[in-house]
């Protein structure tokens, strides 16, 4: 199941674990990324708290945590090569995996159609 936030993150939900990244729209708006900082594995994050930082040549931007949960895995590949986020934001450019505190929290997020309406 794929969900989206108004902060331009996507979540792919499987067995109570969300793989989180930024949307193609967000990646395009940010421009070429040159730096990515990810949370620590094991970090307990709260909804809307800072989860990651991305930087383009121009500016730094925060990536917010879409739901409450614990970070179980991070994508070191995008730290080593931030351009992956631009080339494949909704695939190889994922940021981190989050074990959700309450799986049902995700129900309130947007589906793809609602997100497409938001950015249209």
């Amino acid at each position, binding site marked *: 199941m794929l969900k989206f936030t108004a902060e331009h993150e996507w979540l792919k939900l499987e067995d109570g674990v969300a793989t989180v990244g930024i949307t193609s729209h967000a990646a395009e708006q940010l*421009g*070429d990324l*040159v*730096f990515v*900082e990810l949370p620590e594995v094991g970090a307990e994050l709260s909804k809307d708290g800072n989860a990651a*930082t991305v*930087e*383009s*040549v*121009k*500016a*730094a931007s925060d990536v917010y945590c879409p739901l409450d949960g614990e970070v179980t895995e991070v994508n070191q590949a995008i730290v080593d090569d931030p351009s992956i986020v631009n080339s494949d934001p909704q695939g190889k450019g994922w940021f981190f995996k989050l074990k959700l505190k309450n799986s049902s929290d995700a129900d309130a997020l947007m589906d793809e159609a609602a997100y497409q309406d938001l950015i249209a």
Partner: protein
Amino acid sequence: MDDQTVLKTTPLHALHLSLGARMVPFAGYDMPVQYPAGVLKEHLHTRTASGLFDVSHMGQVVIRAKSGTYEDAAFALETLVPVDILGLKPGRQRYGFFTDDNGGILDDLMITNRGDHLFVVVNASCKDADLAHMQAQLTGCDVELLEDRALLALQGPRAEEVLAALWPDVVEMKFMDVRDASLHDAPCIISRSGYSGEDGFEISVPADQAEQIAKALLEDLHCRPIGLGARDSLRLEAGLCLYGNDIDTTTSPIEAALEWAIQKPRRTGGARAGGFPGADRILGELANGTSRRRVGLKPEGKAPVRAHAKLYADAEGKAELGEVTSGTFGPSVEGPVAMGYVPTRFAEPGCQIFAEVRGKYLPLTVAALPFITPTYKR
């Protein structure tokens, strides 16, 4: 700026839109921050081929002495800038700055001897204030802002070849030369200078022919349009100051490490020593040094360290030294680059200090400027 303010546009505005630029407000103008290629590619293209920038928002000003002589205009402007303008030869350009009575910097500018008058280019954000300042102070001169001209910057190792297609004589120009030229029958003023650290030109063109000339330059596939985003990363790698960030009224030219722009005739013991606002402080600092200096800063990690990040002597944030005034990722350096002010005892290249970024203290090395090797054609 509030939402009600109507942004001004340059004569190339329609061209920017047709090229797919992302527009942002800058110094009261609606300006292209980047084109579809993006900041990274635009930056690298300028360093390896050539880039065309619209800098028409900057102020182009003619200063003409009422007497009609260059000397009188030069003497007059020397009362506002600590630069040898009388000794500037016809067709030559120099960097300078307006100083205030406290020895701070009101703006930086390029100054050209145009034979019987002066031509200066000032920053967009300061041009109204600069104009008022010059009109009030240069009483023996007529000071006129040229509102019917655009300004193009063509920068990069292939800039000469791109411009030569329109004007073959360009090959005879050297760094900081200024010549009249006819491009597509438009009367232009061309200087061999810029703000990227590369060889290149700034071309003053009549507003109504600017788009035609820009399009003619862009017909060369080695020349691509470049936005303000790459302009900033290019100038920072080149160690060039941005007024309002790296220099302002709280920084003196000596603190800013710009003493190279103050020639001997204006220094203590020179033929026309002093005689500019803040001369006591500035000449005193030239003799005795300053307590802080602008330096290059090379973050050791991959994280960019941006303007206003605080600098410390230690990794615990105990001894504050100053702050970063410009910082970004340098695409040619392939890593972060920055500038800032530190106490003079920390201003030696190789000195290690720390910057606070998102609660962490990241190591930086004080570095010699520029970060790249300029390709100016001297």
